[in-house]
């Protein structure tokens, strides 16, 4: 393990392991409680593989009631729980705890209801993102947020991370596409938030759940809205001889009032890695490549193309190719969507960063990133959700070489600090997890973080649900709850009154 520390395991709980396993077997079918070391191995990390930890035991419930019984048991017995979907998370959100139960939701994998008239689908949390689209595409519908991991990642994990995708500039991230949730809180209460209708009475707890990284409750049902597929979509590849011009082009398109369905950018190392892996037909002699996807009725797509292409030329595009068939469009995207595995082929290990920056800071950030790469002696490739400023620098390292992980982590931290310094944030879509936990003070003051933790206390006063994630310091709820009054001498002194 490298620098990040997890909460110390509770020896008293570890000593009761056999009893805890037996209790879980009283709630679940025996096979759904996994306690053999070799069988638990697949659960020892998520896709943030730099950190690994065997759980105490893995429980795989099949019903909401089982989830509720397990959580009530954990809350009564003061046992820590880590929810887990498919384990594709990139920030270590599902990293197990040595004294914790890993609660896998993968067996809750049924599509419960498809309601075309209300344009809603209700599913269990273990259903994969892509399976929702698969379930409705025969009727021309789809579920819009499309993380590149969509074949594998679960909708429960998407809710927990508030995941995005390459089409979220126009169609929103997970939270914007949710209608309802069923959530089990640590005390075993089953709570329904929303349904097939819009908005809620105060407070918007569904909005709070999205992106809460499995720290507030376990999601046991999700209702999403589905959309009708656009009539057509066409993608354009635009190559530039420097990052500045590509960045300027993105800004020009948006300033022109065009919000493309997708607006992605790759830098030279990423283009080369991807092209070698996927043969997507990308040009190799450019510094930056944009993929601009326009969708809608064909007259609209034609009109927007007529506007985007001259803009791109005016910004200095040196390469331009418009997809002429659906197959070609999909090929353009296949490159981008396989960027992570493509880097994975070039380097034994890589860290995927996820900061967001104001777009205009892009050239400055990329330049500094190259300097940092030289400083740390590590390669970095960039894929970038350019429309919304979400960067994915992929830092290449070799975990077998002593000190490289350490250097990679420092490099990553420097990049994220840079993102914050230029007015951006630590994470655009992958979550804080453990990966960015200790960087939270870069963005938030002690008071900011305390206020967030008070919200956690409202759900989980004993910090049993996924502790050690998101927050660098765990404060006790009793201490956080105290009201501090620093009263002066007079009552309401010197305030303007009317």
């Amino acid at each position, binding site marked *: 393990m490298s620098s990040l520390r997890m909460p110390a395991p509770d020896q008293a709980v570890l000593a009761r392991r056999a009893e805890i396993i037996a209790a879980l077997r009283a709630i679940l079918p025996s096979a759904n409680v996994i306690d053999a070391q070799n069988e638990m191995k697949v659960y020892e990390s998520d896709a943030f593989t730099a950190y690994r930890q065997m759980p105490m035991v893995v429980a795989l419930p099949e019903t909401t009631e089982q989830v509720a019984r397990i959580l009530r048991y954990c809350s009564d017995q003061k046992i820590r729980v880590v929810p887990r979907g498919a384990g594709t998370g990139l920030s270590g959100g599902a990293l197990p705890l040595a004294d914790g139960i890993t609660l896998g939701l993968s067996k809750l994998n049924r599509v419960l209801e498809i309601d075309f008239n209300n344009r809603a689908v209700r599913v269990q949390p273990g259903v994969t993102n892509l399976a929702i689209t698969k379930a409705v595409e025969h009727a021309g519908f789809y579920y819009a947020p499309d993380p590149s991991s969509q074949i594998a990642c679960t909708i429960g994990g998407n809710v927990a991370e508030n995941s995005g995708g390459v089409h979220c500039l126009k169609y929103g991230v997970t939270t914007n596409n949710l209608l309802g949730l069923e959530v089990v809180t640590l005390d075993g209460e089953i709570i329904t938030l929303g349904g097939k209708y819009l908005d809620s009475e105060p407070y918007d707890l569904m909005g709070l759940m999205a992106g809460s990284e499995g720290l507030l409750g376990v999601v046991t049902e999700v209702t999403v809205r589905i959309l009708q597929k656009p009539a057509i979509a066409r993608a354009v590849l635009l190559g530039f001889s420097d990052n500045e011009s590509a960045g300027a082009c993105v800004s020009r398109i948006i300033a022109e009032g065009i919000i493309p369905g997708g607006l992605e950018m790759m830098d030279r190392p990423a283009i080369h890695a991807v092209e070698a892996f996927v043969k997507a037909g990308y040009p190799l002699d450019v510094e930056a490549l944009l993929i601009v996807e326009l969708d809608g009725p064909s007259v609209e797509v034609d009109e927007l193309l007529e506007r985007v292409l001259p803009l791109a030329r005016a910004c200095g595009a040196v390469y331009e190719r418009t997809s002429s068939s659906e197959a070609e469009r999909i090929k353009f995207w296949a490159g981008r969507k396989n960027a992570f595995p493509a880097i994975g082929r070039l380097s034994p290990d890589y860290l995927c960063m996820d900061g967001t920056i104001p777009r205009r800071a892009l050239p400055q950030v990329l330049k500094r990133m190259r300097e940092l790469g030289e400083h740390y002696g590590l390669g970095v490739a960039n894929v970038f959700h350019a429309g919304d400023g979400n960067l994915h620098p992929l830092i290449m390292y070799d975990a077998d070489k002593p000190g490289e992980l350490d250097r990679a982590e420092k490099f990553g931290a420097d990049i994220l600090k840079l993102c914050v310094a230029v007015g951006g944030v630590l994470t655009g879509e992958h979550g804080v997890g453990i990966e960015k936990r200790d960087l939270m003070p870069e*963005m938030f003051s002690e008071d900011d973080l305390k206020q967030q933790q008070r919200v956690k206390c409202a759900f989980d006063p004993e910090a049993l649900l996924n502790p050690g994630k998101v927050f660098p310091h765990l404060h006790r709820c009793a201490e956080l709850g105290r009201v501090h009054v620093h009263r002066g001498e007079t009552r309401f002194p010197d*305030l303007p009154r009317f």
Partner: protein
Amino acid sequence: MTTFRPANEHELGDCLTHALADKQTLDVRGRGTKRGLGRDMQTDHVLDMSGFSGITLYEPEELILQARAGTPLAEIETALTAHKQELAFEPCDLGPLLRGVAGEGSVGGMFACNLSGPRRIKAGAARDHFLGVTAYSGRAEMFKAGGRVVKNVTGYDLCKLLANSYGTLCVMTDVTVKVLPAAEKTRTVLVFGLDDTAGVAVLTKALASAHEISAAAHLPADVAGRSSVSHVRNAGTSVTAIRVEGPARSVAHRCEALRKLLGAGEELHSQNSKVFWCELRDVHPFVDDPRAVWRISVAPQAGPAVGVALKGLGDVSVFYDWGGGLLWAAMLPGVSPLDIRAEVTAVGGGHAMLVRGDSELRKTIPVFEPQKPALAGLTRRIKDAFDPQRILNPGRLAPDS
């Protein structure tokens, strides 16, 4: 009762510290236009945030705008219009409906009440465009959440929690909002003479098409007759309306396709279309109506069943927005909220809120949808997390809130 109008963070902090120390309750206001929303409450003092005013940052190409919480919405809209941008969720101006004037609301108030207009079905609600906030909690502590970029998952999304919190959790000082390009062209396709069920069926058909509908409403004849748009007012029957926005050629093409699909009658072009949807957004049909006004959100298909059932409760007028899922209903104050909410429950759930009622009515009945015990418990603990001494808008949501 004193009205405090802090001019800066320092004065606001002082005010809250003293309120906390002396257990004095505050009626938190932006510019006061939505005072009539929510339960009627009695507080010791008023905290007027109109002194926190002005746009502090506007970056059209980054799609963000930052403003002090008391900034008039009208000022923000003027700035956006100059760059052909807008708040895509079409914030409602309930001023006239609540017996005040139009165009006076603040951006903080807009978020605090999460009021979103007809484009809600396509573009999301106010909460979906609320990117960042700086605020003082009821603990008199300043905190911030979110950021100033459009994509961010760093920490809990407290903006969602503050949107729709009606000033009961904290006092916002600064907000960051996502802005979007305004559509080039707008048209509305009208279908006449359908009953509520058939009207919503037409909306459903349109929304299930690939034509990117940006608003879908059904006005029964009595409501349509109140429009200032002559095509609608003089229809002499119900009007079902579907809005299409985008580049000019695309809009013309999609309208054509919709008219074929729906066997539609007429079209409203830019100006009329704009007026028509502003009227629905601001609940104009019920502004001069003496009755109480409710806002009910259900699954879109369930709208007509609720509407028809409500009409059975007495002298009730209803119209539908959000593809059938949002009902605005005018009814006599005597109608029991239990009866109204029973209809919502009967169709599988949703929420009903009394939006306009006199203070007596807002004192006596649950203005917001009552919550089941487990959820109510969580709501209470969230309130404790921000405002444990209950100094901010106490009782605005529920008697013990």
